[in-house]
Every structure is written in structure tokens, then in C-alpha cells.
């Protein structure tokens, strides 16, 4: 059981590690966002909030963003496995669908976590600091849970998709809104009711708020509420994914 999960996990890490282009390329976006938004909106934010530092607000959001994209993408990679035929090899093996789901979720989550850590390192270079060592520990937990949830979500979607044709639609109508309306870039205050509502059912909202609360001590819902929500959501999505995964055909 453990060994099976390990080999599935290891395969994903090897693939990630070997695609240096993907590794480097996926750092461009967070860096751009941080520089553009950080310096662009920084002064405005400081004025509006009475002197608060926008980088403190933005950095946890950008870390969450890079985890979101990497995690969803890792989950969706199963579709490529299907197209290139490798999925069959795993699916006909005498291993349970739960083992496959766990292995793939942990693999994707680990990759997303590594990506998040690298971006976290970048924010450090740009002057962002965690409050204390404990808050750093709690922050890492949030990062991992965000990674877990969105990998599970990617896998769940992938189990229902036959090919990559729906990829753009998922990015534009699901992942982008999840990112923009999560409070990663701006505070979720004084919003029109519809947007407010969406932001409250957006899973990333609780991840971002929790991570920000853990690292900087400022959160809208309270760190432990965020923790409870994201934990419950992760457990839920992984269960749904495992059920759907048990039904897929190669």
C-alpha cells in the first residue's frame, strides 16, 4: 500500500523535476503579479488603509495563487496520461482506486507545495516577513491544505474529462474566478452582493485568509475557522474524487 502510493508519488515528482521549463516558467507569473500589483497598487492601498503595507497583504495571496495553479494543473495531468495511454497501465494494475487517488493527490500536492515554497522565497526577497516561527509553521500547514484541496479538485475534474478540449473553459470559468474573487489581490470589503456571495463560496477565500492570518496576524474570519473550513473541504473533495476515480475508464 505505502509502496504503491510512494511510486505513484515519485513518478510525478520526477516528471516535475525533469521539466525545468515548467519549473521556471511557472515562476514568471507570480513574480509579475507581485511586482506589477505590489508597486502599482501599493501606494493606493497604503492611503486607503491608513498606512498598511500592501506587500504584507499581497504576498500570501500570490503564494496561494501559485499553489492554486500548480495544484489544479497537476490534477489535470491525468488527462494527458489518458491521451498518451499511460493511464491504462495504472488502472489495470491490481491496486485499489483509493491508492491511486491518494498517490496522485499527494504527488500533485507536493509539487504545488514546492512551487508555493519557491514563491514564498521570492516574497522574502521582496521584503515580506512572517511574524514568527510558529506563524510560519501554521502558514506551511495552510499552504499544504490549499495544495491538497486543489489537486483533489483537478483530479476530480480530470476523472470526468476525456481530453484537453475543456481545459480553457475550466481555466477561464473556474480557476480564474476562484483566484480573482478569493481576496488574494484585494480585500473582500464593500463588494456588490453577487460578488460577495461568490467570494464566500470560493474555497480559496478561506485558504488565502488563513494563510494571511497565520503569516501576518490579520485575517477576516479567524485562522482556526479558516483551518476548519479548508480541512473539511479537502476531506470532501478527496472523497468525491476517489468515488469518481473508481468509475473512470481509460
Amino acid at each position, binding site marked *: 500500500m505505502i509502496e504503491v502510493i510512494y*511510486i505513484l508519488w515519485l513518478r510525478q515528482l520526477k*516528471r516535475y523535476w525533469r521539466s525545468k521549463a515548467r519549473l521556471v516558467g511557472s515562476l514568471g507569473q507570480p513574480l509579475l503579479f507581485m511586482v506589477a500589483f505590489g508597486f502599482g497598487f501599493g501606494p493606493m492601498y497604503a492611503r486607503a488603509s491608513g498606512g498598511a503595507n500592501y506587500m504584507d497583504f499581497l504576498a500570501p495571496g500570490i503564494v496561494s495563487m501559485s499553489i492554486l495553479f500548480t495544484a489544479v494543473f497537476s490534477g489535470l495531468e491525468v488527462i494527458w496520461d489518458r491521451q*498518451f495511454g499511460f493511464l491504462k497501465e495504472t488502472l*489495470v494494475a*491490481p491496486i485499489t482506486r483509493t491508492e491511486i487517488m491518494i498517490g496522485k493527490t499527494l504527488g500533485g500536492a507536493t509539487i504545488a507545495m514546492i512551487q508555493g515554497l519557491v514563491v514564498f522565497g521570492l516574497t522574502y526577497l521582496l521584503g515580506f516577513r512572517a511574524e514568527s516561527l510558529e506563524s510560519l509553521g501554521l502558514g506551511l500547514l495552510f499552504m499544504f491544505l490549499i495544495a491538497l484541496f486543489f489537486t483533489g479538485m483537478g483530479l476530480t475534474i480530470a476523472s470526468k474529462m476525456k481530453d484537453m478540449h475543456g481545459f480553457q473553459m475550466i481555466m477561464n470559468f473556474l480557476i480564474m474566478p476562484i483566484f480573482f474573487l478569493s481576496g488574494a489581490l484585494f480585500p473582500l470589503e464593500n463588494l456588490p452582493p453577487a460578488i460577495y456571495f461568490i467570494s464566500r463560496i470560493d474555497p480559496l477565500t478561506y485558504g488565502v485568509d488563513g494563510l494571511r492570518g497565520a503569516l501576518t496576524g490579520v485575517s477576516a474570519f479567524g485562522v482556526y475557522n479558516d483551518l476548519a473550513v479548508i480541512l473539511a473541504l479537502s476531506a470532501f473533495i478527496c472523497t468525491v474524487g476517489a468515488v469518481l476515480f473508481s468509475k473512470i475508464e481509460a
Partner: protein
Amino acid sequence: MQNILSVQSLTKKFDDFTAVNSISFDVEAGSIFAFLGPNGAGKSTTIKMLTTVLKPTNGEIQINGFNVLKEQDEARASFGIVFQDQSLDDELTAYENMVYHAVIYKVPKKERDERIRTALEIVGLWDRRKDFVKTYSGGMKRRLEIARALVHYPKILFLDEPTVGLDPQTRKAIWSHIKTLNEERGMTIFLTTHYMEEAEAIANKIAIIDHGKIIETGTLEEIKEKNETETLEEAFLNLTGRDIRDENGEASNKMRLMGGMYRRRRH
């Protein structure tokens, strides 16, 4: 003799098209069973259903005493398969592909290296084991897929056109090894091939499928006798007609021009 595989009224429909039409057959434990038929006859679709990759529209399958639809995990532990189409990870090395397979098929850890080595040596890839699969030629990839299936010892091994695209030397080596596995371990072999002489040389029992229906079963001798032919190829052509199949498995005259060529279709 006991049956390791038993199929009853197995059917697969893709929308309106019936690819496999209520076929029934049994395969004896320890035998070598050749499943023959023209392109598009429904061979791969049948194998995919037998190996849990596709869900049948209708019918029952028993492998090694397990109901393939209800006891999937137990059934999967009983078979191995070489698919017709590619199923390797290009971004891993050959050796890594082998290890991945050995682990998910639960080959005991201490036997793993030895078995991988033996399998790679049979197909002549031991020296290239550290190369990425994406740098392999088509035939080398095929050899690797076969080697991979030889790492664990299933009760029944499905081979969907295993030797397509391989040179005669390799084909010979692979069949002789498969025959050894069959004789020494009592491993049942279920194979499809378009090389009639391969089927003639190795199979104990033959079934011919066309348009999703089994139109003939028996031993080589029985089939030749019934059709009053000298060779299996003659019998095959008499049974399935001499026209070349188009994409829908229908006989097509315009493709007759292409002569005796058949394409390697992978899906």
C-alpha cells in the same frame, strides 16, 4: 479442464454502433488462445472489456473464478496485459517504467531487480535501460512493453498484437519465451495477431471474430478441416472475405488497391 476465462453474451455498443455483439467463449487454464479477426472486428474492444478498461454494455466475464465486473480488484490481480496502443511513460527511463510496473503489480522487493533484468535481456534492452523512453524507436517501445508484462507472473496474459512492428529475430525470441512461460508456469496466453503463421505455430485453440461476432472456434486442425484448406490463412480469408476493411469494419472495395498491406492501427 478448468476454464480460466469464461465470457457470456458479451456486448459493447458505442452509441448506435455495436463493436462486440453478444459473444461467448471459454479459455482453458494453461492453454494458448488466439483471437483472430480483420481490422475493426472487435478484438481490442473485447480485450479492453476483459481487462476492466471498458465497461461492457452487456454480458458476464469470469477470470480465474472472479466476476470481472463486480470483483475488479481480484480479477486484476489475476491477469497481465500488453495493450495494442502505447502505454509507457515517455518521460521516464525504461528502467523506471519497469520498476513502476513491478511495484504496482506487487512483485516482491528482493526479486524485483533480477526479474527486471531478465525481462529486459529477453527483449535486448538491458543496455539501453537508462535511456528515456522518448528516445526509443517504435519497435524498442514495443519490446519494452512486452518486457514489462513479463516482470510479474499473472495467471493469464493478454497480448493484443504484441509483435506488430518487430523484426523477425525479436518476434522469435519473444514467442519462444512466452511458450516457456506457458509450459513451465502454466500461464494462460490470450493473444491477437494478424500474423497467421504466428497463431498457427503457437495456439492450441483459435477463435475468429468478424463484425463483432465469433464466426469460428476450434483447434487449428479442426478449423482447417472444416474449411477444407491447407493453411489457417486460407481458412481465415474464406471466413472473413477478401475485401479490405475500412474504418467501420465494413468491407471496402476502394481500399483493395492497397493490396496486402495492412496498417498498424493503435487505439
